[in-house]
Structure formats: structure tokens, C-alpha cells
């Protein structure tokens, strides 16, 4: 069905042997230039294999692994760009991190912050995902899901901006509370951990919602019904049936949220205050302005990458038990 019916009378029309196709591809395939270039490659098994292998492998090695390799290389240099006397490879940049609380504390803060955000997101989003996947009627499910997805198509900065205006001293929440006479002076909600967590959860709860939703949706209702028939109450049904069966969704959701929240950059700049400096800001400050701090910045990035990936690996090991795909 993919090949045209004109195939049959090809031999009469075209003096050349071989198939002909409608449209531009036919013109291309029958031109002599094609036979000398693409056609030659397409017909030779070896050339085809080399071409199929070459581009993706070169791309992956240079652009997926290359940058991280370069980052690792620069992180053990004493100077970048290399000093005229030649480069000395050293671990001083890593040592500096452990000696200096100014770097060490924001790093710990960043990790604790990401863990808290992940846990909160899980607790907040789980009932929502469960509601959409199991309680909503199947014909309304897409609509219920789209209502949740739509806000996420607004960009990261636009959503951060809307959170600022929501929580500001003269923002929506404070004005509303004052109007109903609940408070006299505004509650300061902006530029601290509260606004930062509020904003980051606002930005990334989608990464929790979608994996949870697809995992919960796959749980057969008959299992829950069977548990109910055997006398399990709502809590027992949730704890013994639904929670274990949605484990894959919990794992991938938590991994995605954790990895994203540890690397958020714009939100802390706009929503965080002087007391809530987290590690990404420290790293970025080493790269902007003075370029002589690059080795330190690279070392800190490597540390952060290693810690965040190994945390996710550990989490998958502990909760998952077996190997789980992230996506």
C-alpha cells in the first residue's frame, strides 16, 4: 500500500529499470546525481552501516560525553586558562569545597531543600493523580488531565513571575487577607524558603504528576475491589494494594522532581532571599565575572552531579529493589 499503483506501468514509461515514485522523491531517486551519491551509499551495505553508526556515535561521544569530560578535566587543573608554566593537576579544588563552609553549607542546604521539595510534591500530587486516574470517569479523564497540564505550557520565568505577584507584600494573598480583616500588616512571604519552595513545586509538580498518573491508571480496579470484598478498609486498600502497585510511578516521579529541583536556577535567583542561597547560585557566581575561578566551579559541578545522580541511584535501589527505567 506504500508503493504506488503506478509501479506496474513503470517499465513502459521509464526506459530505466527499477521502480519509480510519485512526487519529488521520484525525481530525486531517478536523477543521475542521486545514483552517484545517496544511491551508492544506500545500496552498499557497508557504507550504510558506517553512515548509520558514524553520525549518532560521533554526536553522542563529542556532545553528550565531551562536555562532562572537559568539566572533569578542568576541575583538576590548578588554573584555567592554563598558566604559561604548564598545568599542574591537583585535587585542591575538591579539597577547598570540604574546607570552606561558605561552599559546603549551601550544598547541604541544596540537597535538603531538594529532598523536602520532592517529598512535599509527592504528598501533594499523589491524591490528585489518584483522583484523575481512578475516580474521574474515563470519558472525562483527558479533560481533567488537560486542566492540570495547561499551566505548564507557560514558561518557567512567567510562572515564577506570577508566583512573585501572588505572594508579594501587596500581592493577591496579602490583599485578600487584609480585605477580610484577617491581618493588619502583610505577612512577608517572599524572598525566603517559603516562596522558594512554593515556586519550585509550582514549576515542577508536572514531573511528579505524569509518572504517578500513568502508574496508578495501570492498576486494575478488580484488585482494589477484591481487597474491599475481603474486608480491607480504605486505608488498608491504599497501603497494601495501591501504594505498592504505583511504586514505579513514585520512583520515576521522585527522581525527575529531585533532579530538576536540585538544578533550578532562575527560580532561586528571583524567589530566594539572602538567607536561602542554594548551591546553583554559588556555582554560577564562580563562572560569571572572574574566569579564574573556573576550576573550582567545575569541581563543584562535578560534586553536585555525582551526589545528585548517586542519590537517585540509591533511592531507586532502596525503593525499587530491581532496575527501573527513569523515563
Amino acid at each position, binding site marked *: 500500500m506504500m508503493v504506488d499503483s503506478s509501479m506496474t506501468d513503470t517499465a513502459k514509461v521509464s526506459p530505466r529499470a527499477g521502480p519509480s515514485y510519485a512526487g519529488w522523491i521520484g525525481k530525486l531517486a531517478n536523477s543521475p546525481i542521486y545514483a552517484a551519491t545517496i544511491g551508492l551509499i544506500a545500496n552498499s551495505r557497508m557504507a550504510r552501516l558506517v553512515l548509520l553508526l558514524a553520525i549518532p556515535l560521533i554526536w553522542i561521544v563529542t*556532545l553528550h560525553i565531551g562536555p562532562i569530560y572537559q*568539566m572533569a578535566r*578542568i576541575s583538576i587543573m590548578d588554573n584555567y586558562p592554563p598558566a604559561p608554566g604548564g598545568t599542574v593537576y591537583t585535587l585542591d579544588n575538591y579539597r577547598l569545597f570540604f574546607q570552606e563552609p561558605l561552599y559546603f553549607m549551601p550544598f547541604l542546604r541544596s540537597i535538603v531543600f531538594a529532598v523536602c521539595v520532592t517529598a512535599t510534591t509527592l504528598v501533594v500530587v499523589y491524591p490528585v493523580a489518584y483522583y484523575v486516574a481512578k475516580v474521574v470517569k474515563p470519558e472525562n479523564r483527558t479533560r481533567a488531565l488537560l486542566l492540570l497540564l495547561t499551566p505548564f505550557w507557560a514558561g518557567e520565568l512567567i510562572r515564577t513571575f*506570577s508566583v512573585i505577584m501572588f505572594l508579594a507584600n501587596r500581592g493577591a494573598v496579602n*490583599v485578600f487577607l487584609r480585605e477580610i480583616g484577617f491581618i493588619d500588616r502583610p505577612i512577608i512571604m517572599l524572598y525566603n524558603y517559603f516562596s522558594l519552595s512554593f515556586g519550585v513545586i509550582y514549576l515542577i509538580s508536572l514531573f511528579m504528576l505524569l509518572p504517578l498518573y500513568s502508574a496508578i491508571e495501570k492498576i486494575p480496579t478488580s484488585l482494589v475491589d477484591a481487597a474491599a470484598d475481603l474486608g480491607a478498609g480504605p486505608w488498608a486498600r491504599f497501603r497494601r494494594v495501591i501504594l505498592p502497585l504505583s511504586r514505579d510511578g513514585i520512583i520515576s516521579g521522585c527522581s525527575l522532581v529531585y533532579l530538576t529541583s536540585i538544578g*533550578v536556577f532562575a527560580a532561586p535567583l528571583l524567589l530566594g532571599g539572602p538567607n536561602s542561597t542554594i548551591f546553583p547560585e554559588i556555582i554560577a557566581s564562580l563562572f560569571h565575572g572572574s574566569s579564574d575561578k573556573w576550576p573550582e566551579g567545575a569541581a563543584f559541578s562535578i560534586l553536585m552531579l555525582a551526589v*545528585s545522580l548517586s542519590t537517585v541511584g540509591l533511592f531507586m535501589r532502596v525503593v525499587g529493589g530491581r532496575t527501573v527505567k527513569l523515563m
Partner: protein
Amino acid sequence: MRSYFSDFPKTALQASYWLFVIYLLLPLALMMAISFKDANFVAFPIDKWTLKWYAQVLQDKQFLEACLYSIFIALMTTLFATIVGVWIALLITTEGMIARSVIFALACLPAVVPGLINAISMRIFIRVLDIPTGTGAIILGHTVHAVPFVVIMVLTRLRSMPNNLVDAARDLGADSFVAFMRVTLPYLAPALAGGMVFCVLTSIDDFVRTFFLGGYQTTLPMLIFAKVQGGMSPEINAMATLVLIVTAAVGLYAEHLTRRSRTR
């Protein structure tokens, strides 16, 4: 009374859903509302309404230039990411390919590395190679970030493709290039369309890579960031509302496309 109690979990779930919807939509809705406010400062309540901020934004040359620049970068990113992504996906699905899962894991690497680290490693990489920061660097950074998503989307679609389609085309005399263009590519089209729109939107939205790789010309997120840091004015609200409406519409359309590709 008993039925009330057995309904309690359901009611609580419903409440949590609607509260979450309000949490997601209310800040954006209020932000849109302020864009119609007739005053120079951003604060509630709104007593007078106006459209003047929109008129001002649409005449703002800086904003329009940033829009065009962002769209240009997004289109180039999508073009390259689609080509490379399809290519990698084809390699992974080739029969008899060794170390398939290793290639897949490496292809997904830029999507798993936290965004900031990804941006910094690219910044170091282009410095080592002496590539100047600017348009080319931004497009490279965005493309590397977008490739994994194209690979995943194309792989999902390729898995559902019957093997014998390409074989049939080959048997009928098509060489592998023609078979790819006429059989595989049309089969991939719906997934590709969804993936491409996804690439465009993530590229337009991307702040951290542009922040590290960008030159002097501002992209849309950089412009909004600078304006938000510089001070509040309803003009930013109008700008954000316009961008939001366009991106949300495109996003919903892409959602529609990918949904159709899954069911068809």
C-alpha cells in the same frame, strides 16, 4: 450516614484535585488580570481597567526583536535535534545492534543531568574548543538538551511499527534511502510533529542554557528575567500574558498531535 463515610475518601480526593487546580491556575489568572490594570505599579486591588499595556508591548521593539530571535533559535534547534534524534533512534532499533541499552542511556544523558550542570559543562566545552558564545553556542546547547526527548518519542513510535513494512518496500525495489523517506518517515510523522513542537517550546522557554551560552542579543526569557529583576510594571504582565497565550495554544496543539499518534 454510612454512605457518607464511605464517600469521604472520594470527596477528599475531589477536593484535593480542585485545590490543586486552583493552586496551578490562580497565580497565572491573577497575573493576567493585572495586565489590564490602569496604574503604573503592580498591586491589588484593580480599580481601573485599560488595554494600554498591550499597545505598549506590541510597540516595544526590544520585545519584538527578542521574540524573533527566540523563535529563530527554537526553529534551528528543532531542525537539528529532529535529524540527530531520529538518526540515534534508528541506530538503537537496528537489528543486531550491540550495547543497545548503553547507547540509549548515553543518548538520554543530557536529559538526566541537572539543567545547571548541563549548561556549565557546555560553557566549558565551547571555551575549550574556542567557540564564541552567542547564537551558535545557544543553538548547540539547546539541541543537545532536546535530542533525548526526540529519541524517546521516536523510539516509542518505532516500537509500534511493523517490521515488514520496510522489508516490503525493499523487496519491491526501493533502496534503503527511498524506503526510509517513503515508509519510515511518514509512519513517524505524528510523533515527530509532537516532538518538534515540544522542542520549540522547551527552547523558547530555556533560561539557564541561554544565560551561560548567550551573547549580547537577548532572548525572550532573558528579557523577561531582566525586566522582573529590574522592577515591576504591568507591562511585564501584558508581555507575559501574550507569551503565555501563544505557548499554551501551541502546547495544547502538540498534546493533541501526540495523543492522536498514540491512538492511531
